[in-house]
Structure formats: C-alpha cells, structure tokens
C-alpha cells in the first residue's frame, strides 16, 4: 500500500474536532460523571441463573418485601441470568441473604448462584486512587523513556496524544453511561500502551526522515512519514480490532466492557497518533536542527538481531 494523502491539510479541522470532543468529554465527566461499577462504589452484587426466563418484576417485588428496597434488578447477558445490585451497602452478608431469600421464594425452580461480590466502602475509593496513581506513574515513565530514546518534543507530543486518548475514552464511557469497573480501568491502561505503540512508530519514522530527507519543510517530512506508516497503522489496528470484536461478542459478559473500552481506545489511538502527536510536533516547532546533534545512526546498529 502506498499512500499520498495530505494529512496535515486537515490538521486545523482535526484540532477543532478534537477540542470539541475533549470539552464534551470533560464536561460529561464533570456533570454526568462515570457510571462507576461496584469496584469503585462499594456495595453488593449478586448474579443468579434461573432455569427458565427469570421474572424480573417478581424478583424485584420479593426483594422489596424482603427489605432490600434499593436493589437494582436487571437481566445480564440473557433472560435467564439476573443481576442484582445494591450499590453503597456496607454489610458483607447481604449477598447471602438475598440468595437465600430468593431461593426460598421460588422453591419450584432451582436457582444457580453465579457470583456474589461485596466491596467495602474503603476499598472502592482506594481502588480509584490506586488506578489514578498507576496511570500517572505510567505516563511519567513513558515520557522519560521517549525523551531518552528520542527527544523531549516527541515525549511531549506522545503524552499529549495519550492524555487526549484517555480523556476521550473516559468521555465516551461517561456519555453513554457504560459501567466503569476495574477491568475497564485495566483496559484504559492498555489503551495507553497501544496508543503509545502507534505514536512511537510514527515518531520513529519522522525522526528517521528528519535525518535522511533532503527537504527542509517539517510539514512535508511529517506528511511523508504519516503516509509511509499509514499502511502499517491500518493493518495493525485492523488485526487488533478483529480480536477485540471476537472478545466483545464471545468473551462473556464480564469481559464485554473491557473489550469495548479497548475498541474505542484503538480507534481513538490510531487517530491521535496521526492528528494529535504529529500536530503537536509541528506546533512545538520541531525542525531538522533538533535532531542534528544526536548520536550517529549506526550507534544503534549493535542492537540488531
């Protein structure tokens, strides 16, 4: 595949598009907040499997009569599976109580207990803080590595792209109110890894071309680099999306949101490595002189396989 697309002609439009999306995401995050899962809110969750379709309203009624007023009851995956959530509860025995209440109220049916989860209030906030810390540390270390391997402008551009990706994915989760739990947080960190992968490949080519191409126009060099890497970017995104869709549709309910976060992340990450990272390099005024004092190219050759 060879391409000759003038990516950077669209950069202003992309900038406006990204800004709008970022503002929308942050706005939604601030005002609508995320639909935090049990991992972060604390509380009790029970998943049951009925032999036939479960009667949700009947279950709801039984729970209310049994004293579990705030219980959220919904189907989970199929009409036989029922998910009961009591967010924010602080007693660790509610799960078993619900199970025995429902089992005794429907004696004719054998209910299969799929899972009970209880997360105490202090754990929820701790997990949230730890997740945030992990993300910041990951960003800091990667910035250091890129600054060391490339040049500080590339590090800056990569981090801007990553922050963009994380905020947009969080924004999407907030906008459509998909449950945000611990596995989604892991997915978000994987998005950082994936998006960075993309950004590095593009940056690597920009660095190489800055050294080897005759042209003095950074604009032209970056455009060429983006075109040269586009084939690879599309194929890798495609193969990754293939497995992610397979996870989304077949990996089971517990992995669904994880796959979804990564699907959004891969799409946004591919876009950002082109329009955010490359754009940031131009705005920071990268030119050939920035790489001229670097070590000679063949210093790295010793590392070859």
């Amino acid at each position: 595949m060879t391409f000759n697309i003038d990516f950077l002609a669209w950069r202003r439009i992309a900038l406006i598009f990204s800004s709008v999306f970022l503002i929308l995401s942050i706005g939604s995050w601030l005002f609508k907040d995320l639909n935090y899962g049990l991992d972060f809110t604390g509380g009790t969750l029970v998943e049951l499997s009925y032999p036939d379709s479960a009667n949700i309203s009947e279950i709801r009624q039984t729970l209310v009569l049994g004293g579990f007023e705030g219980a959220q009851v919904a189907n989970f995956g199929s009409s036989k599976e029922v998910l009961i959530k009591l967010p924010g509860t602080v007693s660790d025995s509610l799960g078993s109580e619900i199970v025995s209440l429902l089992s005794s109220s429907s004696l004719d049916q054998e209910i299969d207990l799929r899972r009970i989860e209880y997360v105490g209030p202090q754990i929820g906030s701790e997990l949230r803080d730890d997740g945030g810390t992990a993300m910041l540390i990951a960003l800091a270390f990667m910035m250091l590595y890129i600054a060391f391997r490339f040049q500080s402008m590339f590090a800056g551009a990569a981090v801007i792209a990553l922050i963009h990706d994380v905020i947009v994915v969080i924004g999407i989760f907030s906008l459509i109110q998909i449950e945000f739990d611990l596995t989604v947080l892991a997915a978000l960190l994987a998005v950082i890894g994936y998006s960075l992968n993309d950004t590095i490949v593009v940056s690597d080519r920009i660095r190489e071309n800055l050294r080897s191409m005759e042209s003095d126009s950074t604009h032209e060099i970056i455009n060429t680099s983006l075109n040269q890497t586009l084939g690879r970017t599309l194929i890798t995104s495609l193969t990754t999306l293939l497995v992610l869709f397979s996870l989304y549709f077949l990996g089971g309910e517990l992995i669904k949101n994880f796959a979804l976060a990564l699907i959004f992340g891969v799409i946004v990450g591919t876009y950002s490595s082109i329009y955010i990272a490359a754009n940031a390099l131009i705005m920071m005024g990268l030119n050939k002189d920035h790489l001229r004092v670097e070590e000679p190219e063949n210093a790295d050759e010793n590392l070859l396989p």
Partner: protein
Amino acid sequence: MKRYGLWKYLLILSVLCFGVIYSLPNLYAPDPAVQISYTSSSQTADTFLADKVKELIEKQNLEAKIELEKDYVLVRTNSYQNQLIIKDILSTAMINDVVIALNLAPTTPKWLMDIGANPMKLGLDLRGGVHFLMQVDTETAIKNRQDGTLQDLRRRFREEKIRYSQAGVESDASIYLKFNNPDVLQKAEEFISDNYSQFNFPLISDAMSLRLVLSDLEIEQIESDAIDQNLTTLRNRVNELGVSEPIVQRQGKKRIVVQLPGIQDTAEAKNILGKTATLEFHLEAQMDTPRSRKTSYPYRNGMGAPAFLQDAIILGGDQVATAQASFDENGLPQVNITLDGEGGSKMHRATRGNIGKRLGVLFVEQKTRTVYERDVEGKQIPVQESYEVKEIISLATIRAALGTTFRITGLDSPSESSELALLLRAGALAAPMTFVEERTVGPSLGADNIQAGIFSMILGLLLVLVFILFYYRVFGIAASLALTFNIVLLVAVMSILSATLTLPGIAGIVLTVGMAVDANVLIFSRIREELNKGREPLEAIDAGYNRAFLTIWDANVTTLIVAVILLSYGTGPVKGFAITLSIGIITSMFTAIMGTRAFVNLIYGSRKNLERISI
C-alpha cells in the same frame, strides 16, 4: 543477505521444544477429585485410610480411582456429579477424624511431572470459589496492649507505693497518669524508665502528669504481631474447612487475602474464619479435690494419660498477649508467655499460694461438624453443628509465683515449643477483622468463563491468521507460525512461573495476539517499501528487518513499561491482565523477529538470483 548462523536455528528450535513441552500439561483436563486426610496433623494418610475409602466407594458401585499420596488419599472421578456423590458418601460415613475436600487433580503424565512441567493455575473466576479480603483492626490491638500495660502499671504502682490520682488510656492510645505531687511524678517516671522499654523516652510530662506514648518501633511490632497472629489463626481455620490449595496471604500493611477454591457457601466459610479458639489455665486437681470440681482431659498430642484439672479457670487465652518459643539457660526449649495486665494479676494471685503444684494449659476450640439428620420425609439433610473440644497442651510444675510474663518449660523439642507458641498465639485473633471485600464465583460461571475465554481466543487468532495469510502470502505463513508459537511459549512461561490465569488474563493473551502481529506488519511493510525502491529481494529483506527492529524495540519497551506498572500497582483483574500482557510482549519479540527471520531465511536465504518474493 545476512546468513543465519546454525546456532540461531538451534536456539529457536530448542525454545520451540521447550515451549511445546512445558505448555503440554495444559492440554490434559484435570479430574474432579475428592481428597481425604486426617484431621490431626500428626497422623498421615496410610493404606488403612485408603482401603476404608475404597470399601465405601465400592459399595456404591461408583467408578473411581483411589491413590495414596503423601499427605492424603485422592479419589479421582470422571464427573463433577460423581465427585459430589462421593464426597457426600464419605462425609456421612467418616465425619470426625478426617477432612474431606473437593479438588481438581491434574492428569499430567508422569514424565512431564518429572521434568517439572505442570499446568497453569486457574484463578477463582475460572474455577469457582470464594475470595475474601479482610482488614485487621490493628488500632484495637494497640489499644488492648495499652489497656493491659495500664492494668499492670496500676498493680506495680500499688506495690511500689506510688500514688496516682488519675490514670487512663486516651483515644490516641497513650497512657495518661496524673499525680498530686511532683516528687511522686518523678519517682513514677524513673520507675517506668527502669521497667518498661516500649515507650518514647523521655516521657512527655508537665507539672503533674505523665503521658506514655508507644514508640513507633513498638507500634510496628504490635501491628505485625497482630497480623501474623491473625494469619496463623486463619490458616488453621482454613485447614479445618477442607479446601485444597487455599491461599491465605498478607496484602499490604493491614489486610489479609483468603482464597478458597471450590467453596460456594460463603456464610459457612465466614463463620469458620471468624471463629476463635482459646486457652484456659487451670490448676491441676489434687487428691482431695471433690469430683464435682474437677474434670479429666486428654492430652492434645495424645501423649500421656488424661489428667484431672480443677474446674475453676484461672484465666482464659484472651488474656495471653503474646507467646514466643525460645530456649532457657540450659538450652532447653521453652515458651515465653506475656499476659495482659489483668491476666497477670490473676495469674499472680492464683500461683503464689500453689508453688510446687502443677499448672495446666487447656486448648479450647470451637469446631463445627456436619451431621446428618432425617427431615420429615425421612431424607438425610446435612446440618452444621458446633461443638467444643478441650485438650491439655501443657502441664508443668509452678516454681515461683507467676506475673505478666512467665514461661512454660518441660517441653520435648524446639519444634514442640514453637508449635505451642503458635497455638497460643493462634488461640485467638489478635485484633478483630472486618470483611472488606468478598467475591464468590459459582462453578457454572467459572466453567462458562473458561469456555468463552478460550473460544474467543481461538476465534480471534483464526481471524488474524486468515487475514495475514491472505495479505502477506509466504511471509504470512511465517507470521502465522510465529503467532501460534507465541501463544505456546506464553502458556509455557505462565506454567513454569506457576502464574495464575484469570479471565482478564485470557483477554491479555487475546490482545497480545492482536498486537504481536504489529512487529511483523512493521517488518513486512518495510520490506515492501524497500522492494518498491527497486532493491533486490534479499537486500530488501535484510533492510526490512534491520530498519524495523528499533521501532519494534521502542514500541514494545514502552508497552512493557505500562504492563509492569499495572503489575505492581494493580490487584485482582488488573494484575491478571498485566501478567499475560508482560509475558506476551517479551515472547512476541522473540517469535516475531527471530522466529519469522529464521523461517524466511530457510525459504529464501539459500536461493541465489532470487527474482521475486511473495509478500
């Protein structure tokens, strides 16, 4: 074109063999099994037990294989249904002297086990079970210790005739003492400095009062003692539950993780984990003690004839602050016991008039057992019943009046003394615990998760393979082989590290599959580019691998940084994901670069005047 040395082929070949062999055990599905061991740790499983089990199972005409392992008898069955039936049969027939646990027994062939190849461990989300996270309330342990010390101080001040006007433990766990007279205060301060080492010195004092604050070192000691003690107690409890491969681990500073595979009844598990065993101190009954005021108890270790102890309890195990095994002046094993203040004064009062007589230490335990009752329809139903067991763990002559600290001597061996110290500590929880997290996964969900995980993994892999074969032709074959090899290698490394595979871990493998192709895509698109520039095919291959290497290296190292940070910060699902992702990144670098290169060289490397390559 760069030739590939023989040693590189040999290296790749040996890694391939290694990968295949060590991932092999995962292909053998484990047998649902029941494992039976004696309750008492001094008795190891023997042929007598195995024969008894065999007899019981044969009576029911059930198909099962009975094996005698080192510590237990293993009954392998061919279905989960039979597993439960056999467990029920055995527990009805032999309740009290054995622990019966459900297990998944690996079916790894012996030659694989001999070279250390074992299957991966499955996480609770894949095999079903309970995960508890408990928080130890160490503040209470510290407060209790200070309460004990204050009791002790009161008594000793009385003996030393140091008069205080007010004394108490503050909410910040410091001891507050008020005096009427500065001279007395000074005397008290000196007395405390001479006799107690656990406080921050000099003591905080103003004109009329003293504040005793525990030193950081002491607080740390109390906290870690409390957690160690709770861990020991919990381990003992978990063993009682009859679970195979339980995990009881400290997590962070104040938490304990307990994982019990195969258990679904959380209420029962919690009840048992929360229960406490305790100690009682009694004087030995004398010849003239009336029958109504003495009881005969057996020895815990079964050694020695049962002895009579007075029914009056001097004090209970809840007043043992710590117990440590050590050696006396003659190098003989002993156990040092520290009581809290109240316990100390009770002990002192009871022993000073009984020097020369013997003091018995009773181990009192609340146990639960399953008994079978017939319900109205005559059907047998299991009922949990709790009962108390009292056994003598030590009966030793009192040589002098005992106070807060004393020792139990006359023990046979250092292992006995450390066991006794352990039992004394394990007797009670040092600090209360709260359940802060609980996750139960039923067996059906676990089975579904495995199936869904593996199915999505295979489908994802197939989709990617079809795509790259179609897109890269011969080079696609190289990439496909590398990708498959990568999964084999990843599974082998996971098995050797005995890392735990979880559902997010499977997701990590799937993601690795998608991303591992990236290295090959980078190399292959470079080769195409070089070909387009008009280079000779073999030169183009060389250039493609060389130029793509650094990009792949940088891209993978940065992803690895994320994975490692996830690994060190994450818990639960995050960690499971990070483990497979990190291993996958490393193995994929090897297979995607060296593996495909070797393959390509084998196909094209020896051909001279190669006109075109299929990429």
